């Protein structure tokens, strides 16, 4: 059964903009992206909205819906109260390009700083061998679709532009965690996680985990383990002593 949805959509660019009111006919079972597409098709042909798969797997249609960073393609209209106005704005952490499209290149610049995997040499038969329990741990991080909702919600950069230089953000901490836990990795990335990525700036308030559409436990399974590894290297005298006396290393 169809109905009219009241929407406010941010229209504008870097020079300024406004929340614009629309009434969009929608059908039961539709998502916010459907409403935006209908709006684009019938009333606002020049509405800029980035999207691709419409299945929650490409991470393109990230926006803020009623103030919360979400994927527009995975936000059902049925979650809103009847008659509730749905407000859609671009991600408020990144520079806006036009309407709902933001410049997310910050994330790619930070990704360039993540060191590549430095695996041990191949075995005599030319293969790598890894045990299942060692491989499993990093699989969760591979679910990331790079929607950057976690980056957008992170108050370290959302509310403090000056931290963008020193802080890479939750999505990139997944990368550091994966490197640190990778069974073939030979290098120590703890100093890079501390100095290059700024993991110490994170105060683990878990908003990244709350907004992740892939339900990755970013804080518990990536950020805190990375923080604990940084403690091993930089703040724990007993671990330091153990590494000197028993020659223990992160390669255990």
């Amino acid at each position, binding site marked *: 059964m169809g109905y009219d949805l009241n929407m406010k959509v941010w229209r504008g660019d870097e020079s300024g903009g406004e929340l614009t009111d629309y009434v969009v006919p929608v059908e039961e079972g539709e998502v916010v992206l459907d409403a935006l597409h209908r709006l684009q098709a019938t009333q606002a042909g020049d509405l800029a909205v980035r999207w691709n798969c419409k299945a929650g797997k490409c991470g393109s249609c990230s926006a803020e819906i009623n103030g919360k960073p979400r994927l527009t393609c995975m936000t059902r209209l049925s979650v809103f109260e009847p008659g509730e106005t749905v407000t859609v704005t671009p991600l408020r952490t990144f520079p806006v390009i036009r309407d709902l499209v933001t410049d*997310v290149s910050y994330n790619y610049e930070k990704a360039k700083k993540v060191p590549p995997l430095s695996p041990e040499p191949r075995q005599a038969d030319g293969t790598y061998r890894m045990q299942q329990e060692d491989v499993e741990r990093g699989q969760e991080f591979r679910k990331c679709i790079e929607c950057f909702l976690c980056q957008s919600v992170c108050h370290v950069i959302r509310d403090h532009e000056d931290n963008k230089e020193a802080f890479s953000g939750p999505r990139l901490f997944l990368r550091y965690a994966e490197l640190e836990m990778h069974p073939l990795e030979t290098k120590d990335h703890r100093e890079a996680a501390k100095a290059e990525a700024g993991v110490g700036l994170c105060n683990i308030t878990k908003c990244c985990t709350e907004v992740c559409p892939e339900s990755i436990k970013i804080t518990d399974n990536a950020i805190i383990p990375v923080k604990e590894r940084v403690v091993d290297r930089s703040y724990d005298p007993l671990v330091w002593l153990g590494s000197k006396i028993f020659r223990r290393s992160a390669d255990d």
Partner: protein
Amino acid sequence: MTTPGPEQPDPERQSGGTGTATAAAPSGPLAGGVHEPTRADIGEKTLRKDRYWVTPAITVIVLVAWLTYGVVRVFMQDYYYVDEHHYLTPFYSPCTSTGCVEEAAHFGRFTPNHALIPFAVLSLPLLLVFRLTCYYYRKAYYRSFWLSPPACAVPDGHKRYTGETRFPLILQNLHRYTFYLAAAIVLINTWDMILAFGGDEGFGIGLGNLILIFNVVMLWLYTLSCHSCRHVTGGRLRHFSRHPLRYRWWTFVSKLNTRHMLYAWMSLGTLALVDFYIMGVAAGWFDDLRFL
């Protein structure tokens, strides 16, 4: 998601709707954060309309109430031991003050007896720091007391932010040491719980014993589900396959760790419950319900 190329604003843009706000980029106190000039020009700091303030408000109320109760009880220096059933409240364990009754001092009496020094002065500061540096409680009080941030996508209440990189918050990194010490204190609480089965008339079980057991179970669950425990038991390893026993231990701790928040609140509640019960019995407000 691909990096967008440069786009030019179209002066002839079609608009089918009605504009509701045309605020220029704020300057002065509003500038910065979501009001940076390059970001979408939206006047409101947050567009969230849900009651996001409820959870931080409840957190403040409960923690302040608990701390108030705890401070009153710690400095009451009375009604902490039920002689008849050997119940000792965890707020006074280990009771090391020279002011402790002899039967409650399982580890000797050697700390000064002073109105401003808790009878369990060796354990209480450690337990306080253990909870203060706990990864869950950090989230709770950063959000609710420090408003950094009060809720997701709601601006934090501070102009500058350095996270946990500087003194004093850099000391949060010592959480693992407080975990080791807290685990030792839970062992002492467990010993107190066992001793409470042997009252003046020999072995017996009362409601107080059940509450003590429940409390110790919750304390163990909270302590073992700690993120630092998860790291030191096996999380720091790169190869679980080379350490099968530690892998199994890490797997167990990881399962507990998913409920760390629950255990944090439950153990806070059981601590207050067992203390109140023992205070009530010791003060003669009510009798212990005996089963055996």
